[in-house]
């Protein structure tokens, strides 16, 4: 039981002996412990520059950062908060919001947001909604990555398609994908991730949202992804793979990120992309203009009678229940989120902004590839259901997707089965 024993041991020790501590702040001087994603500390902005500026004004406040990889960002914070030794400030993936909020891992910041209208009003409204759980706002956003259809313009030209005219409907998507496919060269019209990880669903959801409905009912008590809008979206993937043979049947082994690599390598002519791939190695030497000459971005092609929709992920900045000085924590956060500092951060890191003032800044416009498309989608973005049960529901949905793509079940059958599981999970909700 070496590995399991050690995992349990570590968990137990953290809980039992409280040695997993970020320290905690005293009265004076004040220490703010800030747990953020590791890569946000690779550049000076926003945190290091934000801290330096803040400490100039408040020399009594010591700010200690800890950069964490994705899984630790959740597990470590949850365990530490359970032990009463959590950080004061922590990044929260928007899909964890319900879990964190309903378990009071983070505190509502509605009163702070209302007292800071400049910040609150600066957020695009979907993002403000995306940080809200049961009527309370749980934090401002750090950054995001909007999903778009991207295409390889050279491959479009080679297939006799206009490189400046991407497909705008599902039928066009299928038609273009077929034209772009050449199985003998292992080149495919449309690539999407279908690996057993949640990122695969994340790329697919906007096709569902186009039907005007979401994944769960508005009150998050029932699955609705098995209704016609969801079935049609799943059928689209099936048709691309099995009817049109424009997507390879091995996509179940391809994770988000790998499908991007395949696109960069010229194996997929079109994919769904989270954020921009301008920062990928394949385009490292290109200027923005050169990149845009090779890669196009557009909203998801539309379902018949559907409306424009996309999805976003990203990070909310939460204040944990262990924060000894939430007022100071909030003050520091707002200091970091100053427009110039955020512009420098997203530009340096290759991210996308959630604040109107950042999006409007000339430096951001100059940096962000396919700016008009991405800017235009900010108000059409959706988020994954923030319920605590989401990851379990996603597991059932992933299984449904893989069943459909391996021809084990029809889209309707597979989604109905997943909906039963989702409904059962939601029926047991405690929030």
């Amino acid at each position, binding site marked *: *039981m*070496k*590995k*399991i*024993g*050690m*995992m*349990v*041991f570590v*968990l*137990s020790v953290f*809980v039992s002996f409280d040695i997993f501590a970020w320290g905690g702040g005293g009265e004076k001087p004040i220490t703010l412990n800030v747990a953020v994603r590791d890569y946000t500390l690779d550049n000076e902005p926003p945190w290091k520059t934000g801290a330096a500026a803040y400490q100039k004004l408040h020399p009594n406040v010591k700010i200690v950062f800890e950069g964490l990889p994705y*899984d630790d960002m*959740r*597990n470590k914070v*949850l*365990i530490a908060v*359970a*032990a*009463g030794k959590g950080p004061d400030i922590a990044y929260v993936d928007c899909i964890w919001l319900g*879990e*964190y909020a309903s*378990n009071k*891992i983070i505190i509502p910041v509605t009163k702070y947001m209302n007292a800071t209208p400049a910040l609150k009003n600066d957020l695009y409204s979907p993002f403000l909604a995306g940080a809200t759980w049961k009527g309370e706002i749980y934090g401002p956003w750090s950054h995001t990555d909007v999903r778009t259809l991207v295409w390889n313009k050279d491959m479009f030209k080679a297939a006799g398609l206009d490189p400046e005219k991407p497909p705008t409907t599902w039928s066009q998507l299928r038609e273009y994908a077929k034209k772009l496919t050449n199985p003998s060269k*292992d080149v495919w019209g449309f690539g999407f991730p*279908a*690996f*057993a*990880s949640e990122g695969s669903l994340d790329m697919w959801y906007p096709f569902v949202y186009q039907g005007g409905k979401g994944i769960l009912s508005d009150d998050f008590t029932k699955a609705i992804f098995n209704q016609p809008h969801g079935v049609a979206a799943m059928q689209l993937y099936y048709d691309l793979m099995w009817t049109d043979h424009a997507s*390879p*049947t*091995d*996509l*179940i*082994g*391809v*994770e988000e990120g*790998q499908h991007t*690599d*395949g696109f960069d*390598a010229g*194996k997929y002519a079109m994919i769904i992309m989270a954020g921009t791939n301008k920062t990928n190695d394949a385009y490292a030497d290109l200027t923005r203009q050169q990149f845009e000459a090779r890669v196009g971005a557009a909203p998801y092609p539309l379902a018949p009678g559907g409306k424009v929709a996309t999805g976003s992920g990203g990070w909310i900045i939460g204040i944990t229940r262990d924060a000894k000085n939430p007022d100071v924590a909030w003050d520091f956060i707002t200091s970091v989120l100053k427009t110039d500092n955020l512009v420098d951060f997203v530009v340096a890191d290759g991210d996308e902004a959630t604040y109107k003032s950042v999006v409007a800044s000339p430096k951001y416009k100059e940096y962000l590839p396919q700016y008009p498309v991405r800017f235009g989608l900010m108000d059409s973005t959706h988020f994954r259901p923030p319920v*605590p049960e989401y*990851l*379990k529901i996603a*597991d*059932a949905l*992933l*299984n449904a997707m*893989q*069943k459909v793509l*391996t021809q*084990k079940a029809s889209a309707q059958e597979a989604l109905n089965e997943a909906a039963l*599981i989702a409904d059962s999970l939601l029926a047991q909700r405690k929030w």
Partner: protein
Amino acid sequence: MGIGRRPMVGYLYILPLLVLLGLLSVYPALSVLWMSLQSIELANLGAAEFAGLKNYLLLLKSTSPTLGEALGLSFLFVFVSVVFHVFIGFSLANLLAIPWVKGKNAWRNLYMISWVAAGIVIGYTFRFFFEPRAGVLNYLMRLAGLAPRSWAADPKLAMPAIIIVNIWRGVPYSLIIETAGLQSINTELYDAARVDGANAWQMLMRVKIPIVKDFLLLDIILDTTDTFQVFETILAITGGGPLHQTETLALYMYNQAFRYGDVGRGSAIGVVLLAISIVFAVIYIRFFRPGKEEL
């Protein structure tokens, strides 16, 4: 007066080790057992409630995968892995025992690379190795004129693929144990067998294997308990898919406890794994109990 007449002094000498063992082995095992009887979530560790056997009942009712499916996959994964580990490890140990083979230590060190590398690193390395478009394996297959395969995507190929990776990873462990076994053989036995006219096959079957059989058994038992716990490599290569076809018990436990935050149910799965390990430990103790014939 020696220690033999003051047994308490002897216990004092081993006390630090006992404390360490208790802290690192007994305490976690009891903790996981206790947590399996609680309704406890990662996001709410401080508010655990006693739930009796609820987690076990939920485990029995689980459908995706069922406990039986996860157990079946685990046994398949472990059985095939261990058979190949022991066979290849023993074969390599014999090859490296041949007197004229040069650079034996270098070869052994080379083999150890796969054993000392972190499972997650190996997993990600092989994920790219198996990647259908840009993966090395399909590239080599195309060069050889073979059709590329969907290694991690095909429900029929995914489990063989992770077993192959695990075999590659685990062979060095068997190699070390079998090497120790072969080195324990008095070379005069070989000479005596040769004088009696034994050929290589007879030497293997009637001299080597009877003598190293305890090492083989030790290898099988330790490797079995260890292989039951492999999850990080599978997590990286297939994520448990496709269609849960590679979701072994260990990965199932990890997913429940850390991915979905259901620590109670994850602990219940941990207890099942613990029970399996105990069964093998009992077998081990039965075969290696004091008083058994020594080499």
